[in-house]
């Protein structure tokens, strides 16, 4: 047993650092570190840089333009991405629909879609949840009825993250209503420009437009947009859920956020000295740092399992719960750190292109919004309660 990184792994880390030092635009890094929103253009700019480096599709096989990195290399990359304040890639195309296409799609689909994801030509969003089908995803109702060479899709999807930027959506749709819920679901790729699709913003608690409702009204989708076989969509969706889950805990992001917290607490005053010297607040930070340290090792243990050829099972679910709790607790302390200045709601200061003066600390404005936004971590992508159900069933066999 040697839990230090090997010389090769260290060298890889240096390469990644060198790349980020050279190529990460400073304005983007500043926004990410300050917890500000990025524009679509910011995301695209950064994606181009990664693509040119050949580092965008870290999880794909090399034949399609992936990196062939080991699980540990991917982890190191993610860690440095977070530490430098590079944006996390929007996962829906590169990390979600692409693996499904690679595994279950036909040759034509691979030829068509994968290069467009790499080039940034397509921006994908996800059409899973529906108003009546949240945790109980299999009860989804959006219908796709075969009509000659097309499916006619009717229904509604919701919580579609960044759907306002997307030109493509991958959807779970019901193609057979007679069978058991899981068995009549298919996996469709849909062009967002098709007539009959309406995207309506959902404004979330903190006032941001990050998610959407997507309505389908007699939307004609060519049958060649079906992935794999009809009525087997649930299998593909489940593949996606267990695929590469080692990043779920968001350790890198939490480490960056903790660093941010320490910097903020070193600047903010309480009783005329830096808040970080307040023993109670400092202990709260310390307790979080320790929790995070443990979660990081737990995450590395899972990664090492994957590296050794194992499958990350429901352990990832356990770690997802812990990881999201830690991240939420950090955003709680960030908000607390600025005291009364958590109250002002300064939308302009939060904006990606703000260049004016700041009411208080330069990083204060987004903190309360971020705290509220981060409540989603324990809800979306399978609530923490659902994750515990999974662990209970899969690992504990209760």
């Amino acid at each position, binding site marked *: 047993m040697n839990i230090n990184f090997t010389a090769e792994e260290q060298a890889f880390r240096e390469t990644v650092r060198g790349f980020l030092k050279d190529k990460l635009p400073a304005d983007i890094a500043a926004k990410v570190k300050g917890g500000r929103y990025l524009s679509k253009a910011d995301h695209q700019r950064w994606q181009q840089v990664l693509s040119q480096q050949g580092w965008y599709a870290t999880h794909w096989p090399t034949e399609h333009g992936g990196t062939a990195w080991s699980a540990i290399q991917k982890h190191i990359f993610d860690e440095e991405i977070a530490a430098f304040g590079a944006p996390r890639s929007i996962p829906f195309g590169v990390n979600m629909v692409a693996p499904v296409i690679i595994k279950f799609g036909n040759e034509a689909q691979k030829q068509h879609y994968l290069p467009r994801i790499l080039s940034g030509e397509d921006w994908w969003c996800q059409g899973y949840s529906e108003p009546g089908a949240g945790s109980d995803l299999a009860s989804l109702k959006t219908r796709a009825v075969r009509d000659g060479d097309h499916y006619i899709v009717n229904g509604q999807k919701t919580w579609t993250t960044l759907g306002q930027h997307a030109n493509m959506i991958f959807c779970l749709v019901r193609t057979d209503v007679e069978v058991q819920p899981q068995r009549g679901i298919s996996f469709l790729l849909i062009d967002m420009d098709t007539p009959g699709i309406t995207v309506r913003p959902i404004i979330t608690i903190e006032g941001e437009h990050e998610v959407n409702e997507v309505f389908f009204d007699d939307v004609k989708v060519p049958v060649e947009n079906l992935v794999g076989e009809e009525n087997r969509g649930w299998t593909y969706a489940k593949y996606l859920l267990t695929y590469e889950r080692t990043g779920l805990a968001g350790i890198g992001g939490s480490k960056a956020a903790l660093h941010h917290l320490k910097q903020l607490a070193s600047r903010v005053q*309480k009783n005329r000295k830096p808040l970080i010297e307040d023993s109670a607040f400092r202990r709260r930070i310390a307790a979080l740092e320790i929790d995070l340290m443990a979660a990081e090792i737990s995450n590395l243990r899972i990664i090492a399992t994957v590296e050794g050829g194992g499958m990350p099972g429901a352990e990832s679910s356990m770690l997802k719960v812990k990881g999201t709790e830690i991240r939420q607790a950090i955003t709680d302390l960030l908000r607390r750190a600025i005291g009364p200045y958590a109250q002002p709601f300064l939308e302009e200061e939060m904006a990606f292109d703000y260049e004016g003066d700041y009411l208080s600390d330069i990083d204060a404005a987004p903190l309360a919004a971020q705290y509220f936004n981060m409540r989603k971590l324990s809800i979306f992508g399978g609530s923490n309660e659902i994750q515990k159900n999974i662990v209970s069933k899969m690992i504990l066999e209760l």
Partner: protein
Amino acid sequence: MDFRLTEEQQMLQETAARLVRSEYTFEQRERYRESEPGFSKAFWKQLSELGLTAVPFSEAFGGFDGSGVETQVVMTELGRGLCLEPYMQSVILAGGLIDQLGSDHQKQTLLTGIASGEFIAAVGLQEPQSHYNLDDVETRAERLENGYRLNGRKAVVIGGHQAVKLIISARTSGEASDAAGISLFVVDADADGVERQIYPTVDGLKGCDVFLRNVTVPKEALLGTLDEASPAIHYQAGRAMAALCAEAVGAMEEAVKLTLDYLKTRKQFGVPIGKFQVLQHRMVDMSSELEQARSMATLAASVADDGDSVARQRVLSAAKHVIGRSGQYVAEQAIQLHGGIGMTWEYSLAHYAKRLIMINHQLGDDDHHLEVFSGLMETA
């Protein structure tokens, strides 16, 4: 020992509740919020016509000598409606300071106006560096021949954007953060040198930072005794903390109710989600936090208007601590049990959650008050 409201208190409660029910649906509230003043002037007028803005004051000022309990009753109903009016700032804090420290003339001119709802006053007690320590005052007032010249900045003055009068704490002697040497001044909000940077708040209120640049005030602007304002500031902040506790309980009750309804109606996996034991127990924990909060709000109300004492301060800090903690628990769990829908702007729950979290940022959060209590705790 009697926890029941008197008949008068019940009437007061019903009056406030009825008014909030009819004027403050969530849709109305959103309209008020989006309007220029950021609250409903018509509602404020109704409050004052019914005497609610005069509750804590003596009959001489149109009030009815209401104690902490009367304030609690009104604030709980305002909390239930997520009301946006600066009741706590104008009536309780500004009104309280003037009532406690004001000269007859100041009471006549200022208190009458506040009590009648004729104008709104706000208080500037905190500063960018002060965190929650109200004795940490860097704003300075220099003595002039016939008055004072104020320079400095007051932070997050809720309601200050609509205030006609601002009550400002400023240092007249001593070092920053000394309790001694703080004085209070009544400043016209539109006086020369007063600049307000106005903003909405996360929970839908409005406020401002107040910049004072060579603002001169006459010597009659001094409220109370020179250098000795600190005890009154803490005393009135204590009354306001009790009021915030009451408001929080109103908001928590609504959040708990919305969540319980949701558990009974939302179905997943073929049953109402309230059939899942984990969610049931979570709901029990939320109710239990609410009970603890309710108890402390009641205790705080019952001592808020007592004479100043360490015992009173202890209770008030304890109450604010409990409210901060249970408010956060209820807010977070209400969102969690609702799932995605609990995170949407268009559903009222999100706004109850935001108000509950932000109450923790007013006049000291649970950490702050645990520290205060710990310092005041009897040790054996």
